[in-house]
C-alpha cells in the first residue's frame, strides 16, 4: 500500500463526487473519480485503487454490475457501497456480491471516512 491510499469514488452526481473528493483529500487519501460503472471498471484496471466507494443507481452500468464484475476477478479492491437504497434486500445483495461495507445516503462524511479507514485497517491490502 502506498503512502496515500487510492480511493475510487463512483457516483453519477457531480456534487457528491466533488464534496467527497475534497474531504478524502483533506483526510490524506488519494481520491480518483468515476461518474458511471464503465469508467469505474476502467479506472480500477488502470490505477488499481485500494478501495472503491460505489453508488448503485447509475446510468450505463449500475453499481450491481460493477460489484459483480469485481467479485469475479482474482484480485480486486475493497468495496464500500454507498447508496440511497436503504432496504435490507439491497444490503444483503451487496454483501452477497462481495461488498465490505454498506453506507446509506445521506451520511455524515466523517462517518464514511471512519468506515473507509476501518475497512482498510481490517484488510491491509486489496485481495
Amino acid at each position, binding site marked *: 500500500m502506498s503512502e496515500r491510499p487510492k480511493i475510487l469514488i463512483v457516483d453519477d452526481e457531480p456534487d*457528491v463526487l466533488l464534496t467527497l473528493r475534497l474531504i478524502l483529500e483533506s483526510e490524506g487519501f488519494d481520491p480518483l473519480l468515476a461518474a458511471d460503472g464503465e469508467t469505474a471498471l476502467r479506472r480500477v484496471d488502470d490505477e488499481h485503487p485500494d478501495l472503491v466507494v460505489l453508488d448503485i443507481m447509475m*446510468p450505463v452500468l449500475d453499481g450491481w454490475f460493477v460489484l459483480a464484475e469485481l467479485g469475479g476477478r482474482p484480485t480486486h479492491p475493497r468495496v464500500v457501497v454507498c447508496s440511497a*437504497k*436503504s432496504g435490507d434486500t439491497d444490503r444483503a445483495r451487496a454483501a452477497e456480491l462481495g461488498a465490505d461495507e454498506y453506507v446509506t445516503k*445521506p*451520511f455524515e*462524511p466523517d462517518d464514511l471516512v471512519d468506515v473507509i479507514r476501518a475497512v482498510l485497517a481490517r484488510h491491509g491490502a486489496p485481495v
Partner: protein
Amino acid sequence: MDQLPVEISQRIRHEARVAGLHDHAPSIEMVERRRLQLWSIMIVVMISVGLAALTISGATGNVSWVTGQPLVLAGGVGVLAVAFCIYAVEKEVHLHRLSRLLVDERLLSNTMALQLQMNTALFNAGKALNSVMDLDDVLDAILANALELLGGVGGSVMLLEDQTILRVVAVRGEGIARDARVRLGESIVGRVAQSREPLLVSQEFAAADVGGALDANLELGGAMCVPLVNRGQLLGVLTVLAAKGAGFTDDDLSVLSLFAEPVAAATAKAGLYEAERANVAKLLESDRMKSQFVASVSHELRTPITSIRGAVAASRRTDLAAQREELLDVVDRQSGRLQAMVEEMLVAARMQENANRLTMQQIDLCALIRLTALDSNVAGRPVDVELPASCSVRAEPEALRRVLTNLIENAHKYGADPVRVAVQVSDDQVVLSVIDSGPGVAPEERERIFERFYRSDPNGTKPGMGLGLSIVRGLVESCGGSVWVEDAPGGGAAFRVALRTNFVLEPRREAAHV
C-alpha cells in the same frame, strides 16, 4: 287459493258418505265400481218387478184390478220399485258429483305438483344467483334448471356485446357452440332480441333453415326464445330447444319467461360485480403506486441531501477554506433541486383541486418555447427548435412552460440526444412535439406513463418520482388540450401536445352546458 284443496276434500268426504262409500280416500275406480253395483241391483230389481207383475196378471186371469187382492200385491210391488228407483237415482247423483270432484282433485294435485317443481327450479335458479358470483357459473346453473323443468334437449344464454352482437356465454346440450355470435335482428334469437318479445316455435324445424348459432345438422321439435331485460335494458336472449318428436306449448313459454328474470338479474348483478372488482384492482394498483412513490421520493430526497451535508462538512474544514465558494454553490444547487421537487409535488397535489382555475390567455407558443429551450440549454439539456415565427394558442403561460420543461426533461432522462421541439399549425389547433432519439415508448406503456406515480423502471437507475408526465397531462387537459406519445418517424418517442388556437372554445365549460 290454499282453501281450495281443503274444500274439495271436505266435499269429497261428504259426497262419499252420502253415496254410501265409507272409505277415507275414495278413488275414481271405487266410485265406478259403486255405480256398477247400483245399476246391477237396479236392473235385477226391475226384472224382478216385471216378473212379479207378469206372474200376478197370469194368476188372476181377467179378474178386475179394482176389486181383487192381487191388485194390492201389484200395487205394493210397484211402490217398492218406484222407491228403489228414487233411492238409486239419488245415489247416482251423488256418485256423479263425487266422480267429478275426484277428477277435479286429481287435476288440482297435478297442477300443484307442477307448480312445486317449477318453484323448486326457480328457487334453485335464485340460489345459484346468490351463491355464485362468477357469471358463467350462475348462467349455467339457471340454464340447467330451466332445461330440467321444461324437458329441453339443449339451450343457451346469449348476451349482448357492443349493442349489436349476441354472444353465446352459457350452453347446455348439443347443437349450440359456446362463443358463437349472432348479429342483432338476424336469425330467430337476433329478432327476439330486437323486438324484445318472447317467441315460441311449436313445429319441427331444421336448424339449417334458421341459421344463427345453431348447429346446421340439428333436427328439432321446437324452440323457445325469451329476451333478457333488466330495468328496461336489453341484456341478451335465453333459448331452450326441444328434441325432434317433443315440443313446447304456450305454458312452457310462460315458464321460460319466468326464468328470464333471474337470468337478467344475474347478468346485471355480475356486470356490477365485475365493475366493482375492476375498481378494487385499480385502487390496489393506485395504492401500490403510492407506496412506490414514497420510496421514489425518499430516494430522490436522499441524493441532494448527501451533497448538501458533504458540502457543509467540507466547508467547516480549515484546510478547505479556499474551496468554500465552490462548496456553497453545491449547497445552493442541491437545495434548489430539493425546492423544485417539493414544488413538483405541490403542483401535482394542487392540480386535482384547481384544474379549472387556470387563467387562460392567448399566448405566443413559439416565444415561450424559445425561452424554455434557452433555460434548458443552460441547465445542460440541449434542445433543437424548429419553429414558425410565431403561433398563438390559448393556455395558461406558467402551466405551458412547465409542460414544456417536463417534456424536455423527460426526453433527456428516458430518450437520448438530440432532442427536438417542433410546432405544427393547422386551422383550429397547434400541435407541439417534443421528439427524442431514444428507444421510444412500448405501445402497452403509452397510456400508463401519464398516470400519477407510474414509473417505467421502478427498480432502475433513472431518478424521478413518477410525477412529471402526470403533471403534463393534467396541465394540458386543464388548458383544454390533449397529450399523447407515439413513435417518431425516424425512431425515438414523439410526445405531442394539441392545443386550441382561439378564444372561442372552452371544452370543460362547454361540456357542463350539454
